C-alpha cells in the first residue's frame, strides 16, 4: 500500500506551492502542473489517485479536462476534485455532470480542500 498520488492542476504557482506543501505534509505524493494538457498527458502515463483541478485554468477549461481524464483513464479512473473561485451553483452542477467527485470553493482556508481530498482517498 504505497503513498497516494495527487495531481494538482492550477495556473497560480503560489497556490500550487501552498497546496503542494500541505499535501506533502499529509503524506501524499504531489505532482503539480500548470496547464490542463500537461495534466492529461501525465495521467495517461502515470498512476494518479486523485486529481485536483482548478476550473479556470486557461488552456482547456477545468470541466473539459475532468471529462477527458475520466474518458482516458481506463479501468480505475482517478478521483477528481474541482476547485474554483466561483460560488455559482451551476458550476458545481456542471462539475458533477462531468463526473467530478467533489467541488470546493477557494477560500483563505486551504485546509478545507485538504480535508476534501483526504475524504476521497
Amino acid at each position, binding site marked *: 500500500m504505497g503513498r497516494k498520488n495527487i495531481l494538482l492542476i492550477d495556473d497560480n504557482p503560489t497556490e500550487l506551492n501552498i497546496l503542494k506543501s500541505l499535501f506533502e505534509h499529509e503524506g501524499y505524493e504531489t505532482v503539480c502542473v500548470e496547464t490542463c494538457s500537461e495534466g492529461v498527458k501525465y495521467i495517461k502515463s502515470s498512476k494518479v489517485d486523485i486529481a485536483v483541478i482548478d476550473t479556470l485554468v486557461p488552456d482547456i477549461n477545468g470541466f473539459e479536462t475532468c471529462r477527458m481524464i475520466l474518458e482516458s483513464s481506463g479501468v480505475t479512473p482517478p478521483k477528481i476534485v474541482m476547485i*474554483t473561485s466561483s*460560488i*455559482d*451553483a*451551476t*458550476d*458545481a*452542477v*456542471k*462539475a*458533477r*455532470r462531468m463526473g467530478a467527485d*467533489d*467541488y*470546493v*470553493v*477557494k*477560500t*483563505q*482556508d486551504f485546509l*478545507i480542500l485538504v480535508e476534501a481530498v483526504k475524504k476521497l482517498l
Partner: protein
Amino acid sequence: MRKRSLKKGLNIRGKAVVVICMSIFTVMLMTIALTYFVGLRMMRSLLSEEHGKYATLLTSALDRIIKAEINDLKVYVKNPVWINKVEEANNRYSKMSPEEVRTHLAAMDKRWIAASDDDPLVKEYLESDASMRMKVICDSDPRIGEIFITDKYGGLVAASGKTEDFYQSDEAWWQEAFDGGAGKTVVTDISRDESSGTLGISLVLPMKDSNGELIGIAKEVLDIKNLFSPLETFEIGKTGHAVLINEQGYIIFHKDLVPLTVKYLKKGDIKDLLGKKSGWGIVSEHGVHKQKTFVVFRPYIPPFFLNSGTKWYLLIDQDVVEVFAPLNIFILPAIMIVLIAMLVMIPVGFVFGNLLVAPIKKLKKATEKIIAGYEDYKIDIKTGDEIEEFAESFKEMLSRLKAKQNELIKAKDEIEDLSKSLEKKVEDRTAELETQSWGLTKANEGIKVLYKELEERNEQLKRLDQLKSDFVSTVSHELRTPLSIMKEGVSLVLDKITGSINENQEKTLGMVQSNIDRLATIINDLLDISKIEAGKMEVKKSLTDICYLVKDACAKWRLQSDKKKQELTCVAPDGLVNVYLDADKVVQILNNLISNAIKYTPDNGKIKVELINKKDEIEISVSDNGIGISREDHPRVFSKFQQFARPPSAGSKGTGLGLAIARELVQMHQGTIWLESEVNKGSRFVFTLPKMDSETVFKEHISTGIKEVSTRGAPLSLITLKVTGFSQIQKEMGFEKSHNMLKEIEAMINGSLRRKADTVVRDTGEIIVVLLDTSKTNAEVVRSRIEKVIQKYLIDSRKKLPGEIYFTMGFASYPDEAKSDEELLNKARGVIRIRTDNNE
C-alpha cells in the same frame, strides 16, 4: 360459471301454454255459455211456437171432431123416425094440462129410475125403432156414449140405453138447449154421465119439425176418452204429451190419468202458468209428474160451449230434460271438446313457447359464450319480430362495447407508455435534482466559508475605521490645544500686550498668525469631515431668520472682499424669513462658499450673494466672475481633497474639504447644492434649503431624541406649550414682536431647566420641550416649574402684551404613554388648560 338461480316461476313456455289454454278455455267457455243460453232462449221460443202449433192443431182437431159429431147429430135429428117418435110423444101431451104433464113426467121419472133394464116400460122405450137406431149409432161410433131424445117437455122419447132419468127438462143443458122454445145447440162441459157411466161432454141439439118448430131435444154424450183420442195418441219424444185442463186446473184429459181427478197444478201455480202471456212456462211438478216440465198451453173453448165463461186449456208438456236435451247433449261434448282442445293446446303451447323462447335462448347462449370469452360468437336470430329487433340492437351494443373496449385498451396502452416515459422523466429529473442539490450544497459550503471570512474582514475594517475616527478626532483635539495656545500667544504679542514690537516682528508674527489660522481651519475641516463620516454630526433645526444670517455673513466677509477690492453684494428680501434650520451649519456653508468666491475671483471682481424666498424652499446663491471651473471638473468639485487650479492670488490653499463638508451639511438639511460654471466665466454655487413644516421639524426633534434614549434604554418626555389665539396676537403685536415674545418664553423655559434639553419654537405659538432621560413623574415636576416661570413672565411683561394671554400645556412620556414621535406629540398636546390673566 355459476348460474344465478332464478326464482321459481313459470318459464316462457309455461306462460305461453297457460296463456293459450286460458284463452281457449275462456273463449270456448264463453262461446259455450253464450250458445247455451242463446240456444236455450231460442229453443224455448221455437219450442213454444212448435208446441203451440201442436196445441192449436189438436184443439182444431178436437173442434173438428166435436163439430163433426154435432153435424152427425144434426143429420140424425132430421131422421123422420125420430121426428115421428117425438111428435108422437108430444101429441100425448097435447091433451094434458101443464100440471098433468108435470105430474105425468114426475111419475114417469120416478118409475123410470126405479125400473130395471128388463122393465117392460124400459124395454118399450129402448126397443123402439128410434132407440134401436140410436143404439146402432152408439155402437158404431166409439166416441158416442149415449144418445137420447126428449120431447118438448123434457120427457124421454128414445135412447140408446137406459138413461138415468126420464125427465130431463130440469137439467141445465135441456133448458139451455130449449132456450125458451127457440132451440139452441149446446155443448156441455165434462161431467159424469150416470146413465152411460162415462165421463163425457154432451152435444145437445134442438129437434125441429118441418116448420122449424121445436119439438124436442136430442142429446148425445161423447165419451171423452174416445173424443180426445187425438190427444191420447199425441206424443212428442218420450215425455211430451197433450193434456187438457179446465180453468180451475183439473185435468180433463190426460192419457194416464183419470179425468177430473187430479189437478194439473196447485191453484196458485195454475194461475201463474196460465197468466203467462208467452203461452209457455216451466213447472217443477204437476199432477203425477215429478219432473220439471216445459208446458205450452193454448186456450180452447169447444163450440156451443155451455159454460161460455169458462175455457179449457190444451197443454203440450214435455220434460224439460227431454225438451232441452239437444242443448244439453251439446254441453257435455262441448266441455269435452274444450278439455281436449286444451289438452291439444298444451303441446301446441309448448311448441309455441319454444318458438318464442328459442331466440331468447339463443341470445342467452350467445351472451354466456361472449362472457366466457368467445368474443366473436355470432348471434343469429331471424324471427321477424321484436326479438329479432332486440337481437339486432344487442349485436349493435356488443359491437359498440367491443369498440369501446378496444378504445380503452388503446388508451390503457397509451397511458402505460406515458407512464413509462414519465417514470423515465422522473428518474432523469430526480437524478438532475440530485446533481443540482449536490451542486448547491457544494457551492453553499464554499459560500459559508467565504462569508465567515468576509465577516472577519468586515470586523477588521470596522475596527480600522473606528481607529481612524478616533485617531482623527484625538489628533485634531490634541492639535487644537497647542494651536490655540499658539494663537493666543501670537495675538498677545501682536496686540502689544507683551510689549512693543517692531514692524518686522509685526510682519513676521502676522504671517505666523495667519498660518496658525490656516492650520486651525484645516484641523477643523478634518474634524468636521471625520465627524460627518462617523455619522456623529448632528443637525439641530430651529426657527431662524435666514435673511439675517445671510446679511450677517456678507457683512463679516466684507472685510476680506474689501481687501481685494472686490464688490460683495447681498441681495435678500426685506423682513423676516423664518426657516427651520441649523444656523451654525448654514453659516458654515455660507462661509465656505463666500470664502471660495473671494479666493477664486481676482481683484476687482464681483461677488453676489442672493437669497430667494421661494414657496417651498429657500434658495441661496453665491456667484462670482472668477476663473470658473471647467465642465469636466464639475463632478469632482464636491469631492474630498479636490482642488482645481491655484487660486489667482497667493492666498491660503485650503484643505479641499470645504465643499465636501458644505455638501454634507446641505444634504443634512434635505437640501441640494450644485454648481453652474464655465472656465473664465465665473462660478455660481447654489444651494436650497427646503422649508420644512413645523410639524415635521417637531417630529424630527422628537424622533432623534427617541433614537438616542432607546440606545440607552432610557425614557423620554415631551412637554408642549401652546399660546391660545396666537394668530390674533400676531396680528395685534406684529409678526416680529410676537415671535420675539415666543423666543423670550423659550429662553425662560431653557433657563428654568436644570439640564440641557431640546426646545423648539413654532411660529404658530407652540413650543415643545424634549427631555431626554426623563420619566413621566420627573416631567411633571419640570412642567409645573415651567408653568410657574411662564406665568411670572407674563405677569411681568403684561404691559407689553395686548390683553390677556392664555396658554395650554401638556406632556407625555416615552415609552410608557406613546411609542412614536407622532403618538407622543398627539398625546402631549392640550392636556391641561391653564389660564393666566393679568389679575392672577
